């Protein structure tokens, strides 16, 4: 058995823009952390103040970001991870994750005014849609049942507090 990363030499096929942007993003994070560190007031009477660790973390992030940038400029590129249910050769769709994220944020937005059941039902529906399901009636039905059962399980069974929203009084 050989570990995949040890044996394969870095592939050089020119500079990859996404990898470059990731490295720049890490550098930006490091810079932001450094700025944030400078905004922390000094502690009084402390041997090690509240700034020391943030400073170390900022410098480390900047250093590793710089190393990633050098690597990206030399043509290193990251291999997308292999997970259960993924196909490395499948055409990559960015629309599907966007649909999930959009549905999630919409559900979050209506969670308190309309209630937990409708909010999570919207989330459920959007994920099922993004995974290619198109039987809309079935999807809406399952979404509502799952949301309702989850709601009852957690509020009645486990005594957690979830917003009832427009279904207040009915549930």
């Amino acid at each position, binding site marked *: *058995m050989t570990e*995949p990363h*040890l044996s394969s030499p870095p592939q050089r096929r020119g500079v990859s823009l*996404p990898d470059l942007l990731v490295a720049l993003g890490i550098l930006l994070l490091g810079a932001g*952390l450094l700025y*944030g560190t400078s905004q*922390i*007031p000094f*502690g*009084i009477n*402390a*041997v*090690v103040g*509240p700034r020391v*660790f*943030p400073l170390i*973390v900022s410098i*480390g*992030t900047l250093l*590793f970001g710089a190393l990633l940038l050098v690597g990206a400029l030399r043509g290193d590129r*990251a*291999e*997308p*991870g*292999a*997970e*259960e*249910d*993924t*196909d*490395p050769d*499948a055409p*990559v*769709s*960015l629309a599907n*994750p966007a*649909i*999930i*994220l959009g549905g*999630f*944020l919409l*559900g*979050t937005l209506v969670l*308190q005014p309309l209630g937990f059941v409708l909010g*999570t039902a919207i989330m*459920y529906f959007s*994920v*099922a849609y*993004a*995974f*290619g*399901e198109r039987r809309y009636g079935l999807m809406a039905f*399952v979404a509502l049942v*799952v949301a309702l059962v*989850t709601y009852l399980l*957690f509020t009645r069974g*486990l005594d*957690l*507090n*979830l917003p009832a929203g427009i279904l207040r009084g009915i549930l």
Partner: protein
Amino acid sequence: MDALTSLFAGFETALSPLNLLWALIGVTLGTLVGVLPGIGPALTVALLLPVTAKLPPVSAFIMFAGIYYGGMFGGSTTSILLNTPGESSSIITALEGNKMARRGRAAAALATAAIGSFIAGTIGTVLLTFFAPAIADIAVQIPPSAKFALIMLAFVTISATFGGSPLRGLVSLFFGLAIGLVGTDLQSGQSRFALGRPELLDGIDFITVVIGLFAIGETLYVASRYRKSQDVIKLEGGAAMNREDWRRSWKPWLRGTALGFPFGAIPAGGAEIPTFLSYTLEKKLSKHPEEFGKGAIEGVAGPEAANNASAAGVLVPLLTLGLPTSATAAILLAAFQQYGLQPGPLLFITNGDLVWGLIASLYIGNVMLLLLNLPLAPVWARLLLIPRPFLYAGILVFSTVGVYSLNNSVFDLVLLAIFGLIGYGMRRFDFPVTPAIIGVVLGPTAESFFRTAMQQSNGDASIFVRQPLTAFILLIVLVALVLPPILRMRARKTVAA
């Protein structure tokens, strides 16, 4: 035989009818959730945290013991019946076990995994029973500077030494450390990186980070490159082995256990290495080396035992030093902290009933898993047939409940979405998730030990080289950081030459 007396007391706690019920629920839920594709053991424990929120600590940890082993077990069922592994420690099981299943030997593969897990888990728990109190006795005397050094060792081994790319592991670790900094500094009372949001003054809840990076990140990533056709192997009847299978399995089980436990117990980055080592060893020792890669039972029995023994080993540093060495252990640590408990040597003294109740339930959980899983294997196998659109949608809804119920806050759900997006990016750009998780959990602890050590030495940083144990551990840290890249470079030169 102090350990034995305490263990009996632990069994008394764990064997009460109500706690037995919690253990059974834990084992069942752990297996159930662990079997689902896309959910590894770490996420299983994280998603089931809210279920235990209202329980008293002892019952909650008895349930966690069940969830922990159950989640591990569920993962191996998925690897055998579905052709792709969910996590690195199941690669071998997926490789060899899936080949066996393809040859119509799914029942035997599942059985050798179940019985091997039981044997490895039980031996591992016995070793834990006797090692943990002894280590805790020593650990009480370790000075803060050496504890800081131990955390550095965990950081380096988990992120850099054994991962694919040390640089990417370190980036992930520092991202986690940065997240851990957010909130009010406990020693000075100053707020750090709160961006003016009152919600951030208490810090970012660890569970939000875990569920975001694992569950939401995974859902987004799978949606972006989704495999439409699933290749699940049908299973008729329960898991069972014939005499020949037993004869070929028992030695690999024991050898796997011997490899797995020590690797779990030292901070060496989880179960991946011992499973690889066990596979290589079994291939060398086997009388049928030609079967390896085509579905050899030894290649499932050994690595599965190694995986489970290492899961028991991981509990040694977690319980005695408060040092998690895997993502799952980090979540258990966070669970302890939610109850206001700090795992470490003192826990054996202050909360002995809880620790020993937990250890006793590990024995009980193991027996339950075996009894449950041999006959119920076909039921678990059916879970793999849930249509993916409905499955991933359900995972997202459960994640939402888990995070929302922490503080009843919509702000947390926005954070969840952000961490989900970052989790997607980490999978897409090959950054390991575990170092980030460890960074979030251990970062604040590392800072506090660092400050205590510096206060005790009146600000003299040379404490880290003068204190012998600290200096020794830091030397190992340096070697663990520098040696692998050098070896890699030399290996590359040899290949080139």
